[in-house]
């Protein structure tokens, strides 16, 4: 017999919102700090109940449903399946870490800061759990508000510009999605995300709808050439903001693409797939090359996100069970490794108040523990076999290869570039002689126990995912397989009459065979 809670999903979603209000009302910074940490930890623990009570099925679980606005058939509907499960857990895991980091280093106006972080958690979890298009959109857009204020108020030098750019880019990007949502509603009569996967929409509507949805998600992800807000936002955001932005917020784009854009508009997605895949491939190479040129570690990590999210998009566009499963896992992987990277950069920044690579050098001698952890995190980001990044990237490349081999070639090249820029950065930082006396062991203190404790869960997960990927694929695969099968059936049904399909899709069973190879 396992323990369960009623309205589990609503509880996970709105507990942080409730916490935000309490944090604002409680007097005293210390109380606020502990309270915020407690709320996020409790949310994390409760979210583990999803794993405990997990049913090995493809469909939605823990479903909650209430009418919200009956005249337009809008519902408050929440549910979780294999695709969203780990994204929710990623969010609830990264939040206490970010909050703890902020508690250590954020000095000004702590109350509003923590409240905004908690609001952000509600919005992000809501995005992954919503089963109604409008509800999804509400959470999707609502996440802008806390992030905007976090960047603008607690960010770096150029924070206001970065905050406004972030808001306007993403708001404008999703403007047309509202029209597309309405278009979908009036051609199918429902906002139900699950039902929409099985409804055929007229080709013309599909094309417009897909473009509008894909644009919103491409800006969010971000896909080249819609990525220009990202380096600004990442570099200017406070460390915890960067962790959440890279770790979770970007996944809202890829998740939306997978959950909405492809299943609702399967034919249009198949037709425009090569375009998106090309942009993703350009993003992989471009992001890596630009990252190679960066002098600021934080913006290096930011551009590496453009490249990594390119992989995820590539896996999604391949739209076979392997590629999509890999992409889902890679979303989690990227959240873990890039979150950890930003955390490491943040820890260093708080000590030295600079992020310029040229200011460092020889850190290995003064702060070995830090450098050791950084190396592991960097390896995870590069995709070293045995760590999590490899599993995701390799699976995606398999999927991409069966889709169009050229993209797998590009992706492989991207891996080499990733190793290049990451190791270069590590060499400049950690190896060689100490050139600046601010870096020697008298001035620079190594990580404290609690700081290691912050990074440790992430590092452990690198190994768990890297060594036992089936623990995760077991839960991801059924949902992905169901999604891919139903969408492919829709494409085939539509293309039989017109022209024979030029897209070769794999049968979903291959995904099960794949996971063996990565052990």
């Amino acid at each position, binding site marked *: 017999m396992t323990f369960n809670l009623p309205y589990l999903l609503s509880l996970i979603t709105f507990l942080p919102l409730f916490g935000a209000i309490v944090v604002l009302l409680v007097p005293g910074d210390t109380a606020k700090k502990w309270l915020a940490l407690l709320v996020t930890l409790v949310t994390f623990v409760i979210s583990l109940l999803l794993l405990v009570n997990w049913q090995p099925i493809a469909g939605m679980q823990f479903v909650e449903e209430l009418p*919200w*606005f*009956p*005249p*337009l058939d809008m519902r408050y509907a929440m549910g979780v399946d294999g695709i969203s499960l780990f994204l929710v857990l990623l969010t609830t895991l990264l939040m206490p870490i970010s909050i703890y980091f902020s508690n250590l280093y954020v000095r000004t106006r702590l109350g*509003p800061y923590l409240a905004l972080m908690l609001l952000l958690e509600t919005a992000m979890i809501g995005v992954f759990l919503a089963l109604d298009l*409008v509800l999804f*959109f*509400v959470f999707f*857009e*609502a996440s*802008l*508000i806390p992030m*905007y*204020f976090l960047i*603008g*108020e607690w960010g770096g030098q150029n*924070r*206001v510009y970065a*905050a*406004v750019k972030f*808001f*306007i880019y993403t*708001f*404008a990007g999703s*403007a*047309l999605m*509202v*029209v597309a949502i*309405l*278009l979908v*509603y*009036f051609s199918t009569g429902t906002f139900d995300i699950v039902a929409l996967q099985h409804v055929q929409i007229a080709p013309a509507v599909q094309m*417009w709808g897909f473009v509008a949805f894909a644009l919103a998600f491409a800006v969010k992800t971000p896909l080249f050439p819609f990525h220009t807000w990202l380096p600004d936002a990442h570099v200017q955001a406070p460390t915890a903001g960067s962790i959440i932005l890279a770790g979770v917020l970007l996944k809202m784009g890829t998740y939306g693409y997978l959950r909405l854009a492809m299943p609702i508009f399967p034919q249009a997605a198949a037709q425009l797939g090569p375009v998106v895949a090309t942009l993703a491939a350009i993003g992989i190479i471009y992001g890596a090359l630009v990252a190679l040129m960066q002098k600021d570690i934080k913006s290096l990590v930011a551009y590496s996100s453009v490249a990594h999210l390119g992989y995820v998009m590539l896996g999604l566009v391949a739209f076979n069970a392997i590629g999509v499963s890999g992409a889902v896992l890679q979303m989690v992987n990227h959240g873990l490794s890039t979150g950890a990277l930003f955390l490491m950069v943040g820890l260093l920044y708080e000590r030295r108040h600079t992020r310029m690579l040229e200011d460092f050098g020889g850190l290995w001698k003064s702060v070995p523990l830090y450098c050791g952890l950084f190396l592991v995190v960097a390896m995870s980001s590069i995709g070293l076999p045995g760590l999590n990044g490899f599993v995701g990237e390799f699976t995606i490349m398999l999927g991409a290869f069966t889709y169009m081999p050229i993209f797998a070639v590009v992706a492989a090249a991207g891996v080499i570039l990733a190793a290049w820029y990451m190791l270069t950065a590590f060499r400049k930082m950690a190896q060689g002689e100490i050139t600046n006396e601010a870096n020697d062991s008298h001035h620079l203190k190594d990580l404290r126990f609690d700081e290691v404790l912050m990074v440790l869960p992430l590092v452990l997960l690198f190994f768990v995912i890297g060594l036992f990927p089936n623990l995760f694929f077991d839960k991801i695969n059924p949902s992905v397989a169901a999604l891919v099968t139903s969408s492919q059936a829709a494409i085939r049904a539509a293309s039989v009459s017109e022209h024979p399909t030029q897209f070769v899709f794999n049968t979903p069973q291959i995904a099960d065979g794949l996971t063996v190879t990565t052990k």
Partner: protein
Amino acid sequence: MNSVLLTLNLNPIYPATAMVLFAILVMLADILNYGGRTTTRPVIPWIALFGVLVTGGICFWLLGQPTVSFQGMASADPIALGIDLVVLVATGLGILASVKYIPAVSQQVGEYYALLLLVAAGMMVMGSAMDLIVVFLSLEIFSLGLYILSGLNRNDARSSEAAMKYFLLGAFSSAFFVYGAALLYGATGSTQFAQIAASLANNQADLNLLYPAMALLIVGFGFKVSLVPFHMWTPDVYQGAPTPVTAFMSVGTKAAAFAAFYRLFLFALPTQQPVWGWALAILAVLTMTLGNLAALRQTSLKRLLAYSSIAHAGYILVGLVAGSPLGIEGALFYLITYAFMNIGAFMVVMVLEKEGEMDADGNRLRGLAKRQPVLALIMAIFMLSLAGVPPFAGFFAKFFVFSAAVQGGWSWLAAIAMLNSAIGAYYYLRITVAMYFGEPTAETVVEPRRSGPATVGMVIALVFTVLLGFFPMLWSSLIQTGVIQVALR
């Protein structure tokens, strides 16, 4: 005679009558002041507010029994009552804003509240009008009152200029409206919406008169709701009028005029939708785009909100273009949301004005969050709601109005409207930038005026701006779909 009165259903005019009675009560209370012994002045706003609450109660009572009476000239359907409630919210919030403000700018406190209630009564009649004559009468009733109210501050040249400008252009536009109504009568032989529709359906109408009539009527309404290119008066009048009046009229006028606008085109001219649909779509595009682009460049907060209100008129018009009942529901939701968020925003501006000043510069918001965190938070929520960011009510307002356009096949128009709201987000966001990320300078720091009633008003506006976003059914269950569709027939 007696029997006629007894059989006549007075439901459609009960709300307006109540408002008029309270206006008279306010005037009577004001007379007592001239003896010099007692002063009733502090009580007057509360009499007016009580009147608003009583009338609101009447509206809720009437919601259950939709009727059309006066030989089909006035209706107490959900549209009328919805507009009544919007106007009442605007009046109530306007009164709360005025309590401290008006005695500072004018001696005529009694007249002010009496006029406010009479103007509101005019707007409410317009909301229930099913006949061109009634539309025109109510239009003039509330317009005349508004001309006086906007010139209330006689010591301020800008206020007088605003009143003069409003009056001249208003009179001009009334002429357009009357001419249009006359031509429509000539074309169809009736002033009643239902009979105009019947005549058009039977192909008895003279199309040579009909099209000029429609054009003239659009001009007349376009002026009242400030559509581009008939919007020229809006920024000047909004800036010059006392701020509570601006807040009230920005919502009330739109509510009343859009009600008649929607009714006339949906109930009387539905067969001509292919013609006026395009005309209104073009006007909507112009209005949204120019309003937003002009708002980008404003430094005065009242002018900024004026241009933003022009843009919002464009959004509301989008719901009419397709000519569907869904559009009415969307517009009603839009108007009630707009009443809360826009009047709320004007109240914040009002609180930031210096003594004897009737406008506030945008710079005054700089660093507000550090000095007045609660006030800044309230303003930020109004701004985000006006920008249409979920989960605030402003998003659903846009969503519902645009849903009518998409349903009717006008997706491109909804797309332009959404892109416009992205432009709009920039200037609303700029206000939050100033408040939260700006540094105050010595000359821009203003101690906010303390006004208990205005604070209450702001909090009410805030609560509903948030609440309607989470629970849009709060409003829409009042204005039921089915009833509107019955009224359409």
